């Protein structure tokens, strides 16, 4: 005979935070694996070093606070570290990657009180710390050198690139007239971060949106917020501004739109707030790309919008049923 008096509900959807995080990891894997294929063992060492450093840090922090170690396995730390690593240059020194992962865990999350309490996206916070502290290492973009025998035609494509990202060369030369082929661009076979393959990221993102893991509003709003002004700017000055397709496919735009800005902890919870937040992120990315001192601004844009996310949430409170419209 049950002895507890409990209030409703007595059923649950079965969705758990760990399952959400595991689905995010699954969605990240194609782009990550492709990145490792392109950039070889040095990238693999970076991933392994960062993951172990981040997880050990997480474990220590949980232990110091007498929190259950089981939370380690809720995979949120793994997501954070993977996102950080995928936004780093592929041949970034592994010890600095490990340092970044520790920073993400400690200063990105644990100092605020752990999962769910942080104001800023931990991965982007760590990335900005690394970018400011190690500017040389953070802007060293190697060309892809596939470890395994490349499939036909890939080698010729790779040969066409030298050591600068698309966005970086636009920033340096001031000219957006770059000879680009669509196929390598969409697959991400060019110098750039470890996890930048647009098509594979998009597949993961659409799968997550279909599964309800992320809210499509943020992603769509972010892309609109960035690409709409980009298209206008490109129309006005096609010599200095990249084509919208190139804008979409280069840099961290898709990673930011699908995986980073959609981080539930640091984004607003209201549907309208999410659209506003996404538009803000996108517009800031556009502004930094066009007018900023850095070629790519996804990390800064997201951190800035994180800061105003509580404000957005409070001004976009939805209307309660039965209240006048």
């Amino acid at each position: 005979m049950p002895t507890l008096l409990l209030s409703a509900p007595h059923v649950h959807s079965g969705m758990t935070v760990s399952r959400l995080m595991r689905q995010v990891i699954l969605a990240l894997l194609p782009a990550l694996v492709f990145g490792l294929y392109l950039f070889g063992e040095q990238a693999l060492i970076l991933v392994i070093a960062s993951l172990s450093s981040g997880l050990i840090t997480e474990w220590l922090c949980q232990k110091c606070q007498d929190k259950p170690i089981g939370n380690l396995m809720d995979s949120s730390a793994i997501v954070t570290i993977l996102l950080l690593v995928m936004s780093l240059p592929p041949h970034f020194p592994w010890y600095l990657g490990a340092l970044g992962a520790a920073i993400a865990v400690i200063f990105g999350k644990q100092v605020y009180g752990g999962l769910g309490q942080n104001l800023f996206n931990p991965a982007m916070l760590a990335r900005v710390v690394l970018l400011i502290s190690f500017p040389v290492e953070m802007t060293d973009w190697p060309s892809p050198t596939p470890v395994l025998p490349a499939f036909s035609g890939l080698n010729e494509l790779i040969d066409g690139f030298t050591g600068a990202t698309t966005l970086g060369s636009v920033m340096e030369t001031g000219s957006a007239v770059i000879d680009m082929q669509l196929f390598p661009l969409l697959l991400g076979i060019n110098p750039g971060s470890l996890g930048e393959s647009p098509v594979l990221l998009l597949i993961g993102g659409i799968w997550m949106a279909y599964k309800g893991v992320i809210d499509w509003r943020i992603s769509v709003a972010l892309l609109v917020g960035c690409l709409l002004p980009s298209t206008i700017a490109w129309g006005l000055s096609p010599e200095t501004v990249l084509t919208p397709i190139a804008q979409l496919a280069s840099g961290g735009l898709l990673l930011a739109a699908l995986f980073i800005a959609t981080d539930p902890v640091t984004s607003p919870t209201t549907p309208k707030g999410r659209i506003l937040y996404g538009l803000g992120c996108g517009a800031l990315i556009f502004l930094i790309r066009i007018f900023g001192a850095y070629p790519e601004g996804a990390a800064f844009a997201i951190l800035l919008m994180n800061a105003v996310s509580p404000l957005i949430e409070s001004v976009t409170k939805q209307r309660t049923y039965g209240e006048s419209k």
Partner: protein
Amino acid sequence: MLFSKRLIKGGVHPNGQKKLSNNNAIVKLAPPKRLFLSLKQHSGAPAKAVIQVGDKVTAGQMIATGQGGSANIHAPYSGTIESIAEHVAAIPGGGKQTMVQLLCDSEPNNNYIKLHHHYQSRAELIDIIADAGIVGMGGAIFPAATKLRSTLNKEIDTLLINGCECEPYLTCDDLVMQEQCVQVVGGVRYLLEACAAKKAIIGVEDNKPLALQALIDATSEDDNIEVQTLPTHYPMGSAKQFIQALCKVEVPKGKRSTDVGVFVQNVATCAAIYNALRFGNAMTQRVVTLSGGALEQPMNIEAPIGTLISELVATCGGLKLSAARIVVGGPMMGHTITNMHSPIMKGTSGILFLNEDELPQTTSSPCVSCGRCVAACPMGLLPNAMAELIANDDLEAAQKQGLNSCLLCGSCAFICPASLPLTQYFSYATTEIGRQKKMQQKAQLARRLNQQRTRRLEQEAIKKAAEKAAKKAARAAGGTRPQRSPRVPKTAKQES
């Protein structure tokens, strides 16, 4: 889902579990030996018993009369009143209620006392519904006649009949619509007359095709009764959401559905109204769903009000597993009980015996503010923010956030990936606020009484002083009496 327009805001799609109990016909329970009829089976004040211990009663005889808008209670079978005493009830908290214990005759007397059921006016029609002791069977247990009387001076445009039964597991309304559709539709016709509505819409979720077909067939000749199919979407059956889905209007905050020209009633209540007006039968029976993974044979039982839950379980072949939770009502909004020796009441729609596998996990993880609760709230509230305020004991701020609008529908807690007890926080807060309000009223009363007392004592003191002064003055003026010694001897004082 993406392309169909949503009829209501938010909501969730729990696993219906309707197949467990909707395959079999309604089973009619053999008359039980004893019935326990609670005097408080409706919202409002308890009914007043009109019989004495030891009295013989006939089936259909009124044993308690509603007072102040509450509902009458009738004896389901003939028998003897054994006692009128406290007995454990299937209410939240597992408390006790005053119940009339009826020992049914071993050979049931088939002489039913019929209600007087002829009427000439709307008011008289409603009186018959009141006499029959009919309450809303959809969960609110509000006396039907009281609700109908409020329509006498209001314009009712649409009568909405709620056949959604959106709670998982429950199928009693489904079966009533299938098997008693004539009574249901008959009741709708009476209700149309009672509230003078222009048309009636019966709304049924699309997971009940048999019930829908039965209703469509039964209403084929009624021009003013429409049967509408609604998508299966919890909480479609909540009155406010039901109105929103069918009439595209929202009931303004603090108003009733009748204020927007809509009158809502549940399908099973319609059948009860038909039985009262057509045959003069009082409300003494109801269909109850018994379901859940721990029950041997889930089914719907038509049982007299006051039957012990344990007897219903025996009819279902007992439990095949030990039940981890026994829930009265649906799994989304019902409450648990710990004693199967409590009787069913007029508002008991279902009793669920859930096994361990069907239950949610009891451990929760930190909120990641994923916003699923916000998206799921049919009332447009922010459950995560409200729960945090309540966790920090700031009930006032939670009320400002809209706690009073909360339906306690359970959607937020159902969907929460962190398994946070969101709805449980709101259940706690609403009951706790009610209690605090009572304590506050009490404190105010105490304060007022204290002020009155202080004033009275002051006035008494002034009066005494004045009297003393007057006496003194009289003495001084007269001067005839010898002056009393100012000092009274100590011994004398002690003796007095």
